[in-house]
């Protein structure tokens, strides 16, 4: 046994199975240095963290038990959030159809795709909450601002993915339908839409889900829905009511997720 081990080639001529990857190690070191530097820039100290943990324990203690007695106020806010999400999704998805089609580079000339893509980029790059504040300032408090903000956000997401899906279709079917002398709308309805419909429904349901989440938040900046109730409860240090609202929001979002999965399965 020991003789066999000795007969193996020594370490001097044996190749290492896993050679050290110095560039990668440098990257990790860079991350570590960055964390130290940035924590210093933002004034993070261990003290602040520890005092925060103490306060966090008090905070959690005050959240329990959640107070559900004002359920009517909560139900009102949740329903308004739901309405905002539904209207914004419907409007956003309907508007995404033409905009996405106009942004598809394999069907449209550059004259059309460039402005359509600019609209999509603009709608995409701002967080829905920022868009919501701007609408709140422009047209006043209430669900309308939230609806408009989420509609714009939906266009940014759905139209972008719709355009990308159209760009990936097979052009054979388009040619075949065109060869029958179909009009442009005929080509779109018979050759383009059937190829992308399944994916369109996929990201539309995803957007419905995401709008439901955001519709509970636009209220923080005055855009209507449960967010306003949540924010004012926070400002009144009414933490047991905050806990109740959070639980109901999470319940609604999870229900929405179940419905979205179920919708997707129906259309598979």
């Amino acid at each position, binding site marked *: 046994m020991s003789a066999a081990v000795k007969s193996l080639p020594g370490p001097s001529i044996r190749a290492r199975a896993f050679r050290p990857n110095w560039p990668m190690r440098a990257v990790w070191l860079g991350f570590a240095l960055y964390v130290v530097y940035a924590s210093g820039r933002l004034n993070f100290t261990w003290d602040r963290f520890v005092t925060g943990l103490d306060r966090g324990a008090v905070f959690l203690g005050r959240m329990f038990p959640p107070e559900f007695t004002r359920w009517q106020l909560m139900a009102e806010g949740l329903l308004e959030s739901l309405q*905002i999400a539904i*209207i914004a999704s419907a409007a956003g998805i309907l508007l995404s159809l033409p905009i996405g089609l106009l942004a598809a580079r394999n069907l449209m000339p550059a004259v059309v795709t460039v402005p359509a893509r600019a609209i999509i980029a603009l709608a995409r790059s701002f967080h829905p909450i920022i868009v919501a504040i701007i609408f709140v300032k422009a047209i006043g408090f209430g669900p309308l601002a939230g*609806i408009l903000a989420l509609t714009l956000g939906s266009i940014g997401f759905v139209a972008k993915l719709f355009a990308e899906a159209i760009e990936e279709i097979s052009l054979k079917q388009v040619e075949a339908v065109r060869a029958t002398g179909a009009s442009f709308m005929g080509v779109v309805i018979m050759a383009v839409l059937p190829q992308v419909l399944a994916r369109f429904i996929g990201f539309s349901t995803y957007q419905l889900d995401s709008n439901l989440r955001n519709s509970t938040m636009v209220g923080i900046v005055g855009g209507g829905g449960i967010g306003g109730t949540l924010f004012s409860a926070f400002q009144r240090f009414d933490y047991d009511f905050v806990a109740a609202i959070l639980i109901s929001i999470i319940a609604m979002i999870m229900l929405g997720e179940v419905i979205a999965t179920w919708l997707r399965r129906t259309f598979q």
Partner: protein
Amino acid sequence: MSHTNDAPRWQRFTRAQRLARFAVYLAMVMAVVWSVQNVRVIPEFLYDAHTQMADLLRRMWPPDMAYYPATVHGALIETLHIATLGTILAVSMAVPIGLMAANNIVPIRIVNEFAKLILVASRSVNSLVWALLFVAIFGPGALAGTIAIAFRSIGFVGKLLAEAVEEASTGPVEALRAVGAPWPALLLKGYWPQVQPAFWSIALFRWDINVRESAVLGLVGAGGIGLVLDSAMNFFQWTRVATILIAIFIVVILAEIVVTQIRKRLI
């Protein structure tokens, strides 16, 4: 009519499928009608929305560029630090939780389910709510924002990471196990090389999202450019608001370009 009896009539969907689809369409239309009828929107607000928007945009013009070096630049850098530190913190917390959620790493169902519960909880709470909670705990400032970003991202990173780990091929892992490698070596040399591309791609993707999200956190007092935006709006300094919005827009676009470029090189 007679041909339906002779030849089988081709139909894409079964009757049940068609009924299910029809039911869904009907439910959607009903939901939209119900929402439109019940939502408390004042119609006059809707009719003059475009003039109000145009008025606001006119008041924003021209953007107050002198304001940028004074206040906006520092806040913007702070926002980027919040997003980056938050992402790093999130990834370092999501790796152990993601591994716990992957059934081929920890073959204990109850641990998997517990880890998945943590991930779902993290995702279900919006980053603004996380920020509100941490502002109440740590006080206003960048610390609350960073931790809010981190807690919000754990769910996303952990879920995708767990999926990537579960998809890893067992070949290299079994080979390592056969030569008697200890478990850290299994993770480091068996799984990590397979998961690495997905790992970087997930982390970059989340960083891109976090740059957008961290711009908002200041609205509830969690530091960064949102704070500056909020105060400019409260004082109706619309030309400054325009500068801030342009700055956010450029940073978001730059972040997206950086991410696409790195992904192209790396993966």
